[in-house]
């Protein structure tokens, strides 16, 4: 149909182009994006997995070691600390949707100035994790932190969470939970405003209210939101790096190590590129499991 009104007088290249432009246009439009994406995202994934089979200091020739990096990794206590911390991060980050929903319910009112207030609540999400990490590191600093300035005034004893092998990781995750909750809140707010009013009204007519209404009517209709929110939380929990780097650099005594930071440290500080690549490969496999599940669900929705 596209070719029907074409002038018949075109010749040579131009005629050829007009005959094929419908098929060629998507190729031309996709090519630059796909090439750049392949070069900087797809190829590096494969190359990292390949590198994980070598011993390499980044300069000298690579030495093939097979699965030796992985064997070493699975006997490495720091790896297990990092893995446990990532899983802990993930578990705590799944509170973000709960808190986010709570905040969204709280803010889902039409009072004057509510839009500005919602925006202010979202602000932590817009700020760089570097700044968030700096703020929290200072807040929680044992000697001149704001928290320890405040606690004695309230009659509480001072604390030093970032110096504690037991509590430091929770302090770091807490800093991450702040912007994450803000993000979940805005997604839930959009979900709540998108709900059809008749739906709620008819449920109210049937006598549902409060938690009952939330649990049996509102939440089931927010499932697409919950799904995306949970996935985003999982992804950012596994990626975590910035806050650890800024707040603790993995310490004290590796207690706040996460996989993303451990691989950075092993690669650039210990110059063990192959070992670093092996850690990244494990992280990738972990994420692959989660993302695979996510895509499978998305595909089902796409085809439905």
């Amino acid at each position, binding site marked *: *149909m596209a070719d029907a009104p*074409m002038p018949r007088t075109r010749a040579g290249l131009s005629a050829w182009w*007009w005959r094929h*432009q*419908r098929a060629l246009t*998507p190729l*031309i*439009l996709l090519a*630059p*994006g796909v090439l*750049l*994406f392949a*070069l*900087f*995202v*797809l190829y*590096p*994934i494969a190359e*990292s997995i390949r*590198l994980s089979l070598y011993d390499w200091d980044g300069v000298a020739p690579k030495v093939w070691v097979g699965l030796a990096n992985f064997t070493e990794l699975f006997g490495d206590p720091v790896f297990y600390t990092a893995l446990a911390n990532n899983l802990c991060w993930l578990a705590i980050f799944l509170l973000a949707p709960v808190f986010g929903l709570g905040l969204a*319910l709280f803010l889902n*009112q*039409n009072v004057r100035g509510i*839009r500005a*207030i919602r925006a*202010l*609540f979202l*602000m*932590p999400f*817009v*700020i*760089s*994790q*570097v*700044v968030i990490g*700096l*703020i929290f590191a200072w807040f929680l600093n044992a000697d001149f932190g704001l928290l320890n300035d405040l606690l004695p005034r309230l009659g509480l004893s001072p604390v030093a969470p970032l110096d504690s092998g037991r509590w430091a990781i929770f302090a770091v995750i807490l800093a991450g939970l702040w912007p994450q909750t803000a*993000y979940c809140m805005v*997604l839930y707010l959009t*979900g709540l405003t998108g*709900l059809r*009013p008749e739906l709620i009204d008819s449920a109210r007519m049937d006598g549902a209210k409060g938690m009952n*209404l*939330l649990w049996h*009517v509102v939440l089931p*209709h*927010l499932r*697409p939101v919950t799904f995306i929110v949970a996935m985003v939380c999982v*992804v950012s929990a596994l*990626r975590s*790096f*910035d806050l650890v*780097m800024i707040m603790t650099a993995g310490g004290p005594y590796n207690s706040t190590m996460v996989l993303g930071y451990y691989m*950075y440290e092993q*690669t650039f500080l210990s110059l063990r*590129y192959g070992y*670093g690549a092996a850690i*990244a490969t494990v992280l990738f496999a972990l994420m692959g499991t989660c*993302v695979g599940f996510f895509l499978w669900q*998305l595909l089902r929705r796409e085809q439905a």
Partner: protein
Amino acid sequence: MFPTPIAQVSSAARRTYRAALLVSLALWLLPLLGVALTSMRSIEDLNRGNFWGWPSEIKLVENYAAVFGDTRMAQFFLNSVLITLPAVAGAVALACMAGFALAKFRFRGNLALFIVFIAGNLVPFQILMIPVRNLALDLHFYDTRWALILFHAAFQIGFCTLFMRNFIKQLPDAMLDAARIEGLSELQVFWHVVLPLMRPAIAAIAALTFTFVWNDYFWSLVLVQSDDVRPLTAGIQSLRGMWLASWNLISAGSIVAALPPVLLFFLMQQHFIAGLTAGTEGD
């Protein structure tokens, strides 16, 4: 509407709600308020332990002047701008093109390609670290702004394409067909019909991508190392050693780093939130 609109309940409850809003907002933003206040304190104030009270003297101008005057923050700021703007422009332009191709053309591998774009954007970026750095070294753009521009543009294409494709898919086919019958080629349809309609989508995705790229820290550690090209996020962390306990200066620097995305967010709030929440409207 859920929960019950506050307008339908007693006026006492309404006043309580308003008060609760303000109190919770103040608590929520307490860390940021602390930083903003500290950025205008004198160092004597901090040494005296005056963290929460009103500053004994306002050193707003002095502190920010020190941040820009005594350090290379101005250079870092410029670097952030020179990295972020081209990266966003590149990612958005390429994503518009790819999004149109994926939304309105049937060809083998269309859905597969779409999935690759989504999945690629979700990978832990640590797995890209060593090869991308080697690529930058081999192609001689390591430690230049180009390293960050190219990488960010490439990495953000995934999310931008997902967004653009979904947006363009909603445009009616009949409109495109009408343009084709007028004799427009597919590229002309893209340029004259589709692109003008994409303005709100472009605004949303550009605002969002700007924030992601501006706030990046990981890649500014991996791909650059000299102060001449380093963006704000890495720059401010490197200044921490120099400033030590001068938290008033660190706070002022943090505010400088945080301000551009915050301003952009407040200026383009509707677009920004539309981009963030695309595809999550409840059913």
